């Protein structure tokens, strides 16, 4: 065939190096050599014509190294295929599932509406950081002191009534 004298004929065991790896290695060699692939049962035959300025022996050695590199890369890619797919699926699912974000936004807007219902002047410039329009900062004892006194008073009156069972006012 073409330039028979300067070509290198290599036979690659197809049971060790899959065709995909051979093809990938050949692809990376397109700038260094002209490559023709052929198949013979389980083996892949590679014919290389080194381009000008390339030593045939060096090209052959480099091709074997590249072949090993591609075969290993392919093997690792297959081993990690499930993990890669899972990570990508999760990333895509999180990016496209806007229902969760909408729900959170709706809840936030609802809570803002509730604040409006209270008619509080929260946006006023007069509001100081010490102001407490919702009464959040008032201690429990102060807030319910009046109620507790009322209950105590009612309890004393009930205890004074004759025939009232003990402990009922407590």
């Amino acid at each position, binding site marked *: 065939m073409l330039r028979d004298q300067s070509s290198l004929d290599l036979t690659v065991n197809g049971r060790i190096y899959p065709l995909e790896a051979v093809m990938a290695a050949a692809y990376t060699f397109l700038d260094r050599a002209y490559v*023709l692939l052929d198949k013979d049962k389980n083996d892949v035959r590679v014919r290389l014509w080194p381009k000008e300025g390339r030593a045939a022996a060096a090209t052959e050695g480099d091709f074997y190294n590249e072949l090993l590199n591609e075969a290993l890369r392919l093997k690792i890619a297959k081993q990690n295929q499930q993990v890669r797919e899972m990570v990508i699926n999760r990333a895509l699912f999180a990016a496209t599932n806007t229902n969760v974000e909408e729900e959170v936004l709706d809840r936030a807007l609802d809570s803002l509406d509730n604040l409006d219902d209270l008619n509080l002047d929260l946006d006023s410039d007069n509001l100081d950081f010490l102001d407490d329009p919702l009464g959040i900062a008032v201690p429990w004892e102060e807030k319910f002191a009046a109620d507790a006194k009322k209950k105590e008073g009612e309890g004393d009156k009930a205890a004074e009534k004759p025939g009232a069972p003990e402990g009922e006012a407590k």
Partner: protein
Amino acid sequence: MASTTLRFNAAIYSKAALEATREAYAEFARLAVAREGGTWVVDVEPLTADLAADVLALEIMNFALAETAHQKRGVSA
């Protein structure tokens, strides 16, 4: 003009790749693609005399391999 014949194993090289090669080199050479059993036979006839037929055939061979590799690898290439 002198033509060169290339033979590609059909188990490795796809028809689509060879068709893409034929289109890519249409302005430099006339390529006739035919199937003979498990082999694609490509006749390369350069359109101008200044192109060396054997070198052009080698370039076409590399292009066909690159196309096949691209198509096999798909989007992950």
